[in-house]
């Protein structure tokens, strides 16, 4: 099938791809907001692509697990990556800026949405960003930032603090960056 072999970046200008660029889809978030997006951008999400191929994308595609704010962000990302003439370098730079400004909570939402919509590039990017936030921080900082309640017993906690004292002595400063 020609459609399957199409280049998602859209560099080859074949009529099929051209057609996609003009066709728009409407995505509906969990809180009822609707977004329109060109098909060529939308199909960067494997999940949406499958829906399009199965022809269930007739009118509006409901995305019950993604809220409006997150969906808007995801669409920004998709549009950039489907853009004609955007070089890889540009996209990389965009990715960096795209995730760097996000709050931790937003990152979680986006990673969930990317996982749900199956957008590989975005998923990788956000995952890396979350991992970066974990780097070189003390245990307390990690707990605070990721809202983790320690479920160790006080004795275990004591033992760990003794054994891994260095993990508590802030390596980077614990100031949120």
């Amino acid at each position: 099938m020609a459609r399957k072999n199409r280049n998602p970046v859209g560099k080859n200008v074949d009529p099929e791809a051209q057609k996609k660029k003009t066709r728009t889809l409407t995505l509906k978030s969990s809180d009822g907001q609707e977004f329109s997006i060109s098909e060529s951008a939308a199909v960067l999400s494997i999940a949406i692509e499958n829906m399009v191929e199965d022809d269930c994308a007739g009118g509006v595609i409901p995305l019950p697990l993604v809220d409006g704010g997150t969906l808007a962000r995801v669409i920004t990302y998709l549009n950039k990556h489907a853009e004609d003439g955007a070089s890889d370098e540009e996209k990389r730079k965009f990715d960096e800026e795209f995730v760097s400004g996000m709050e931790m909570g937003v990152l979680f939402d986006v990673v969930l949405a990317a996982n749900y919509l199956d957008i590989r590039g975005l998923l990788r990017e956000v995952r890396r960003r979350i991992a970066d936030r974990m780097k070189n921080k003390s245990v307390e900082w990690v707990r605070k930032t990721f809202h983790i309640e320690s479920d160790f017993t006080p004795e275990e906690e004591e033992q760990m603090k003794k054994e891994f004292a260095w993990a508590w002595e802030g390596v980077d400063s614990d100031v949120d960056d």
Partner: protein
Amino acid sequence: MEKRRRNRRRTTKLCGYLCAVCSQFRRTPPPPFPQLPSAVLAETPQMFTSPPKRRALDPIGKTESSIPKRRRLSRSGGAELGRSTDRLAWTEVECGSREVRAVVLVDVYLPIALWSGWQFPRSSSIAAALFKHLSCDWGARSLMLKSVKSDGDDYYSIWNVTDCHVLGCRRHCSAPDNLKKQKLFELQEIFKSLPCVTKKVDCDYSRVKPAVSSCESGIWVLSDDILINILTTLSPIDLVKISLACRHLRFLAASIMPCMKLKLYPHQQAAVEWMLQREKESKVLKHPLYMNFRTADGFDFNINMVSGEIVAGIVPTIRDFRGGMFCDEPGLGKTITAISLILKTQGTLAEPPDAVQVIWCMHDGNQRCGYYEAHADNITKGNVSNIKNVHKVRRGQLCLDELTPKNIFNGYESKSPWLLGSREQIVEPTDSCSNKRIKVCEPACSTPATISTPSSRSWSNARRNLLAAYKEPSFTSQRCSENRKHAYKGDKQRSPGNQVGLARRISFTKKRDNETVTDDLEYNETWVQCDACSKWRKESITLPTRLPRQRGPLGPGGEHIIFCIGVLKEHYTLLNSETKKALTWLAKLSPGKLAEMETTGIALCEPLDSLRLYLSSATLIVVPSNLVDHWRTQIERHVRPGQLRVYIWGDQKKKPSGHCLAWDYDVVITTFNRLSAEWGPHKRSVLMQVHWLRVVLDEGHTLGSSLNLTNKLQMAVSLTATNRWLLTGTPTPNTPNSQLSYLQPMLKFLKEETYGQHQKSWEAGIVRPFEAEMEEGRSRLLQLLHRCMISARK
């Protein structure tokens, strides 16, 4: 008679009993047992006679010739040794035969002096052989005395006693079938019977627990596979930290091999977990050779089953060694498992022994490194590890508080106020023989020792300063007192052996660009230890040409010069014209020449009796020469590039320096040939200058290939390491005989406390009983192997 008994009761205690079986063939049917004269019975217990097979159950009458062990015991022990009394418990007659078997209850008494250190005077190992048959089940004994009866079990067992003739003895092989028995004592079969470690499934903490205060989103919203993907990208150190946050993250992190490009098989993962467990703080175990007894009135004591040594009260313990034998069958990816283990613990520092004080310094600008001095006797005997390690695992960064022995400053705080508040690190230079040393706290110097260092540390500058210091010491001290921070921390006196009469030790600390350099030199006008190369030099103040010459771990040699300037100034009055000439010559040398001297040095070393050990976070892997490339490619192929710093020291290459090996690499690979070559009676190998985090011997069975004390083995044993591992697919050669002895060198390398360090315990406790196919040897071997060996099978 009655009085004697009471007397005995006062000085001895009933410590155990056993039921011995005696037999007699009679022409006539036996009389019922109460009519048996007790005088005969008193002579009966003829068990424990040694080569048991030849001597079947002896008739009572004949036993006089073979000395019963009990009698031997009392003979050897003299009057004060434990006595025993016999009582007939019951008899059995086998239907259709004329054999009578009688069960005799033998009570064994030991003197009360046992609780004040009494030991078996002689033949203690024979005594031990008797005591291992004793029982302390006093309830069962009183039952036996009350009701003289035999139920089915007893009936069976009385006719099936083992060679020792003790009723219900389980110390000998119980399998009567010869074939089956042989299998039980086949070493390969035993290896096979070891359970594979399987991954424990923890389903208790299936979620990350949200903190109460937070509301809508936290890391718990992410599903496990997303979390795992996130954690996989982390570095080893970060991964450990994350795993400390909560149980669920710990559980997830456990299965992740950081920076490893491939996914491990379940048996490999389980092996890594098991190995990590073995590397954690070592457990204290009950000594496997001691058996616990309890007197009738409830006092405990322990007897060593091999040596017969008695320990009353406390239970003797051993400290489990860290490491073990990793014996997966060939082809199951031992290399990968070992690399994963290295990655999991990357950055962990080896634990210094308790008795030593670690000196911390900066290496390569930002890496904090430590070393300590160990007494040479310890090293040569290879028993550094005997100093018990009860330390916590250190890893990566350390907190300052921990590093700084606070009490050092007590005498100096007022004199050197600039020390306070600065983040400067002052550590006490000392070593394991510090107990020999008298600490004398003097006000460091009457004149504040302030010396100039140029910030740009070029040689020409250093040269100029040297001159300046020597010509105009007062000027330099004035000039620099405001911005240079120096201190002579303290003088100490020691006399290490006879070689040095009175040595003074000065530690010299200065602050430069937020980094601390501790210079540590020892001198008494005759000896100086260079911090860089740890060599001792006969050094005379009046010969300042002999500066420490080697580029050291502390950065370019500037510190040495500074130190020497200090010395020069202090002893300015001693300088004669000769010296001044020499100094002038030195000052005029071209920088190139100086640099050359610095690197090549002028050999002037004579070892003193202490050895510096560099604490390392590196793993030393010793492999057969043909496997070096295998390890290299495995690391290159499967580990994220740049993650592990690998050094390969092949058979021919030039000798690296100790601190480089210790501090610059994560993995050092060398060969067995190199290992053998590094051993020499007076040689102090570089490999021995490092306290490794871990030593891994690949194909470790080659240690046992010769039963003699090879260079290889001696070298392997004298390596200092926190964790010791053997990797081998074939622990012992698959030959029918005497395979067991091949294990001993390996245990020696592993520093197993009971059997590895004591040849005698190994032979008497395991080898001999095992080869005589006795159950006790087998069970001890099994217990040992279960503790320290895993072996996955295809």
